[in-house]
Structures are given as C-alpha cells and as structure tokens.
C-alpha cells in the first residue's frame, strides 16, 4: 500500500464530504424534521402538497421541463437526421448551430427574447401590423419553455447525432435487403438504435430545465419550484422548511433524470467498429428536399441567433420598448459598466479562475487515484464527485447557508457562509463532474507503460506523476480548465443564494440585478455580452486545445499501441 496516494485520497474525500455530501444530506434531513422539535416527520411534505401555490409550482416545473424537451427535440431531431442521413453541404452549419446556443446562458438571453417575442415585442408588433394577430410566444410559462429549448437543444443534437453516426451500417443494409426503406425503416430500425443517445440527451435537458433558477426569475415566472425555493429562503430565512422540501423534490428528480440518462446506454451500446467508419448510408438530396432542408435550417438558425441579436441590440440601444427596434444606439451602457461595475468582471475572472483551478487539480488527483492505484474504496471518489451533477445550484446554496451558518472563517470573525471563498467552492463542486471526465479521458490516453518505465528508472509515484503523467495529460487538463472557467463564469443558481454583498458579486449576479429594472436593461445587456464573449472565447480555445492535442497524440498512440501481445 503506497501511503502518498492514500493520503491524497483522504484529503479529496474530506473535501467532497465537507462541501458536497454534508450540505446535501443536511438539506434532506431538515426537510424531514419538525421545525420546532427536530423530530422526524412528514408534515413539511404534507404542508407542501396541501398548498395550492406549491402544487401549482410543482406541476409548472414538470410541465416546463417536459415541454422544453419536446420543443428541443423538434429542433434537434430534424437537424440530426439531416447531418447523418444526407450528403449535406450544410453539415458545418449544423455543427455551429450546436455550439451557438451554449455560449449564452439562458437567463442572459431571456430579457432579450422578451423584447423580441413578447406580447409587445418586435415579432408580435410586425405580425399584428401586417397580419392582425399575435402569438403568445413568451406569455407566462411559454417564455421559459422557448428560452430553455433554444439554449438546450444542442444536448439532444450532439447525443443523437453521435448515436446515429455509430450505427453499424450493416444493420440498415440487412433491413433494406429484407425490403424495408424510408420512414418505415427509420421508425423500425434507425430510431430504436439511436434511442440511447436520444434518451441521454433528453434526460439531461429535463434535468437542467427542471433545476434552472435564473431564467424563470428573470422572466418573472415565480410559480415554479426553483424560484419558490429561492424566494422562501431569501424572504423568510433558512429556517423555513418549504425551501428544503422543494430541494428534496429537485434532487429526487435530478437523480431520476441522471439515472435514466445512464440507464439508456446500459446493455444497449450499439456502437460498432466498422471498416471505413460507421453510420447510415448517406444519399444526396433531391432539389425539393434541399429547399425544405435549408429552409428548416434557416428557421432554426434565426431562432438560435435571436437571443444573441436581441442582446446585442439591447446593449447598444437607447430606449427600446413597444417598438420593433431600439429608438437609437449608444455606447453609454458599456462605458457605464466598465466605469462603475467593473468589479463584476474582476470578481468573475477571479472566482471562475480559482474554481477551474480547483477543478483540474481535484480532477487529475481523482482520475489518477481511481484509475492508477489500488486503494480500496477509490471508486467512491469518482461516484461522489460525479453525483454533484444531481445537485441543483439552489440546493447546494441552501445547504451551505444552513451548514455553515454560525461557522466563522478561521482567524477572523467573518461568517463563513458570506465569505466569497464559499462561492468559489460551490462553483468548483458544481463543475467538478465535467472537469473530472476531461481528466479521466486525458489520463486514459497515457499508456501505463510510460509510468512503469519511469518507476523502473527510479522515479517514485509522485515524481512520475509530476514529470510524466501530468505533462502528457496537459491538453485534456487545459481543456477541462477552460470549460470549467467558462461555465463557472456564468453560473447563477448557487450564486444567487450565496452572494451577500454587491462588492463580492460576479457577472451573473450583476446581470440579474440590472435586468430587474427597465433602466438597467441596457447595462445588463452589456454585461451579458461580456459574459457571452468570455464563454465563447473559452469554448473556442477549448476546442482548439483539444484539436491540437488530438493531432499531436496520434504519434503518442502509435508508441503506446505498438505491441500489446500478451505473454
């Protein structure tokens, strides 16, 4: 037993227990506790379901999440079908379509969407003027559904496209050989085979929409679970049991969605290893099909770009209400943001940078311990870290407020719960699952023999990790860092719960505060554009790093794969 790695493993376990397991368990516990006596009771849940407001919120959350999956599917499925079924010049366009929505967090574009598609928004004004009717795109729950679907459909698109691309061509060919073709073939053969990918993507979308706090809040839709939890805790305080009941429901549904997502692939991985690549037979488009395909793509492109365009206009617009376009344009909002609110930007860079650093250090350590050592119980590090996916930001925030209430920062008398470092930790815990997967993938590219060769020449485990393993993982680690950074920079749920003063607030909080008032929408949009730029750059660099790593690595893989004859 090597003691060095075991020590590191214990430290990791402590971190995860202190900042993930205990807060979540505490929240669940409080939900089942009588607020007065502390005894176990179901009375909180009874109160919850007896209150019509909460029943309505529960139903609304289910409805919105479900409908978002439907709408996202109706955008993603045609696109996935186009790329995998046809020799399509627009394949690159579709790939780009899959990325653009993800660089703008849904709550950022929500207000812009309101201005474009709201009952007095640009589109409806035009419709009313020329055709005499309006469409309630953004009324109530519809607004949330629309914004979320546009943002999250890439999850379904990429998973489904990957699934379709992996289908063994011979499965389709044998069906054709037996007389099947067209839609019937698609329904009986292709779609069932692509189901795992679809279910994985769809359950992820459901989970994210169900848990989302920022978008409903910004659209003034409060009768949903996450906003209700936030409002109860922030107005009544951390003793109110309803916030905890809601948290339990959120966590339960998240776990269920994740379980469904993982289950979708169990025993049904239809991926094939095929000469010349897998995937369906591609054919060319007939002219009328081309027109149809391109018009659908154009429509989707317009929808996908709507929040970005809207936000851009809003950030430069002077006054924009009850009009198709802003009345005039100005740089004032950007100037104001840089002059008076630059702390939002600097805080964000600091918090996201720290959180991403923590993520890659933890991710590398966990990856190495799980995959390269024999320490008993090490798999649990992976499981617990990944379980963070099932914890909505709201719940983590409530958990921290409750657990660290009354605890003070060592060596000072500042309450721990309002110290900005706690927010950084929350951000890193929430992003850790993604960073961990990136580090695991990077580690698996490094052949074990490279480490053995170093140990053979006298290097201990820690020297080997430092001199050999980490440098060879560097591409994946860097990509993980950048992705963690970009997503932590715009996280809102845990942020709203944990930010105690404006001076400590990051971008997402600043956007939220500005967007509350009509006058603040301009600067809010300016901040939003800055956030989009940060995330966009992050995503771009992450892709570049991964691509460069992939090119360099083909030579490594030759070295590593040469000769694995068992003896």
């Amino acid at each position, binding site marked *: 037993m090597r003691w060095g790695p075991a020590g590191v493993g214990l430290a990791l376990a402590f971190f995860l227990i202190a900042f993930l397991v205990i807060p979540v368990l505490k929240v669940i516990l409080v939900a089942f506790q009588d607020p007065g006596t502390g005894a176990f009771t179901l009375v909180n849940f009874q109160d919850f379901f007896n209150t019509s407001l909460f029943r309505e919120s529960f139903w609304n959350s289910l409805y919105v999440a479900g409908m978002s999956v439907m709408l996202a599917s109706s955008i993603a499925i045609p696109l996935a079908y186009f790329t995998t079924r046809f020799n399509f010049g627009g394949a690159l366009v579709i790939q780009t379509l899959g990325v653009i929505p993800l660089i703008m967090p849904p709550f950022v574009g929500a207000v812009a969407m309101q201005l474009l598609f709201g009952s007095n928004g640009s589109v409806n004004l035009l419709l009313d003027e020329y055709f005499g009717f309006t469409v309630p795109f953004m009324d109530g729950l519809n607004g949330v559904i629309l914004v979320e679907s546009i943002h999250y459909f890439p999850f379904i698109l990429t998973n489904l496209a990957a699934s379709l691309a992996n289908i063994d061509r011979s499965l389709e060919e044998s069906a054709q050989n037996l007389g099947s073709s067209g839609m019937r073939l698609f329904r009986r053969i292709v779609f069932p085979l692509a189901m795992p990918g679809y279910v994985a993507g769809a359950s992820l979308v459901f989970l994210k929409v169900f848990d989302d706090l920022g978008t409903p809040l910004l659209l003034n839709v409060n009768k949903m679970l996450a906003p209700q939890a936030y409002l109860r805790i922030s107005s009544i305080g951390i003793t109110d049991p309803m916030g905890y009941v809601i948290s339990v429901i959120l966590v339960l549904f998240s776990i269920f969605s994740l379980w469904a997502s993982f289950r979708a692939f169990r025993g049904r991985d239809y991926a094939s290893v095929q000469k010349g690549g897998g995937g369906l037979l591609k054919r060319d488009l007939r002219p009328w099909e081309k027109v149809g395909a391109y018009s659908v793509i154009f429509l989707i492109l317009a929808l996908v770009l709507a929040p970005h365009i809207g936000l851009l206009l809003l950030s430069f617009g002077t006054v924009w209400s009850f009009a198709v376009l802003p009345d005039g344009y100005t740089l004032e909002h950007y100037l104001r943001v840089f002059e008076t609110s630059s702390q939002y930007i600097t805080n964000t860079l600091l918090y996201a940078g720290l959180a991403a650093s923590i993520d890659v250090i933890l991710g590398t350590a966990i990856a190495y311990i799980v995959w390269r050592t024999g320490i008993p119980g090490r798999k649990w590090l992976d499981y617990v870290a990944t379980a963070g996916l099932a914890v909505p930001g709201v719940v983590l925030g409530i958990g921290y407020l409750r657990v660290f209430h009354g605890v003070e920062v060592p060596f000072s008398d500042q309450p721990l719960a309002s110290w900005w470092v706690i927010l950084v930790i929350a951000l890193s815990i929430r992003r850790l699952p993604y960073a961990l997967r990136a580090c695991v993938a990077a580690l698996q590219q490094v052949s074990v023999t490279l480490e053995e060769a170093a140990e*053979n*020449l*006298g*290097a201990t485990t820690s*020297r080997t990790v430092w001199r050999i393993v980490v440098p*060879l993982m560097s591409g994946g680690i860097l990509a993980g860092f950048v992705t963690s950074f970009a997503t932590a920079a715009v996280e809102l749920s845990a942020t709203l719960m944990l930010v105690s003063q404006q001076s400590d607030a990051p971008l997402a909080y600043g956007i939220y505060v500005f967007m509350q008032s009509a006058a603040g929408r301009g600067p809010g949009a300016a901040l939003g554009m800055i956030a989009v730029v940060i995330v966009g750059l992050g995503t771009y660099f992450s892709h570049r790093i991964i691509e460069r790593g992939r090119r360099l690595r083909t*030579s490594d893989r030759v070295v590593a794969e040469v*000769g694995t004859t068992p*003896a």
Partner: protein
Amino acid sequence: MDLKSVTVQLRNVGLAFGDNVVLRDIDLDIEAGEFFAFLGPSGSGKSTLLRLIAGFGPTPEGQVLIDGEDIARLPPWKRNVGMVFQNYALWPHMSVQRNVAFGLEERRLPASEVRERVDAALDVVGLREYADRRPSQLSGGQQQRVALARTIVVEPRVLLLDEPLSNLDANLRIRMRSEIRELQRRLGITTIFVTHDQEEANTVADRMAVLNDGILQ
C-alpha cells in the same frame, strides 16, 4: 561502462491476480553475466514473470534474489533492474536526450556527469546524432535502441528485455538480435530476454527456461 555481473535466483515464486493463479512454484538460477531467455507461448506467464522481477503487478510469493538480496517486496524504483518494454515506452514529450537522462536525473547526479553518461550511452547504441529528436521522429529500430540506451545508462544490475524484437520487421529483427547479444557480451550484464520465438531464443541465449501455463517446463 563497468558493470559488475550478479546472479539472479527465483525461489518458490508464485503469483496470482485475485483468484487467478498465473505463476506457480518457479525455481530458477541464473548465473552472473548470463544471457537467459524465458520462452513460451502467449499466456504462458513469461512476461508476467519478467515484470514480477521488475516489481510490477501484485506482490508475489517466494523470493527473488538479486546478488543474494531478496527484492520481492521492494517497490520498482528501488530495485535497480533495467527494463526495456515491449512498446519501448519512450516519453513522447521529451527528446531522446531527455529520455535517456531521466534515470540519472532521478538519482540526482550533477548535470555534467549526466551529460557525459548520456552521450556515452547514445554512442554505444549508435544514436548520438539523434539526441535532440523526439521519439515520434524515429523508426521502430531506433526507438528500441533509445529504450536500450535509457536502461543501460543507469548501470542496472540486471537487464530485462520484454519481447524487444517482436515489433520489428524480419530483417531488422535478425540484425538487432546480434547487436543486442554483442552489447550484452561487452557489458557483461546479466540479462533476461522474453520471447515466444524458439529460433530466436536458441540463437541468442546461453540458457533458457520454457514456461507454459505459469509453470516451468
């Protein structure tokens, strides 16, 4: 390079992966300076036995004596047995020079001595001019020679070669076979060589052990 030849002895060595016993009752005496081969088909345990001597895999039963000292429970970095891996295991992010220097740097030798010994080792395998290249820029045969240089530069007590020739084409194999043999004679280092090729074992080895299903034949 001045290397003292040592004996290698295996006493009652056994190894299991969980419930799966892969090596049983291995007793072996290898003389100092000998070129010894482990021969056997795929799955016979010959590579496992070699890796056991290097310290990779679960802790074995029995004794592994090098120069009379039992190393069976030492971690790999303390054994000072040099291993050349089947896939050469050259680090792609380091040049040939830095690959070969690695073991010396781990022993905290002064930079001038490291430089000197690396040059000498590269001279022995005839690759001095390639010192600044990356492994990916070398041919299979050259990579194998770098792997050799990297191992002999630290002057190990025993040299372990895990099917070093199986990834080379036929002509190169025959040439490298005799080069390795000659090198071993010159250095006088006790060497264990794993192969599944009987002709190869017959040509290069002084003596050999045949393994099948984890048992010495």
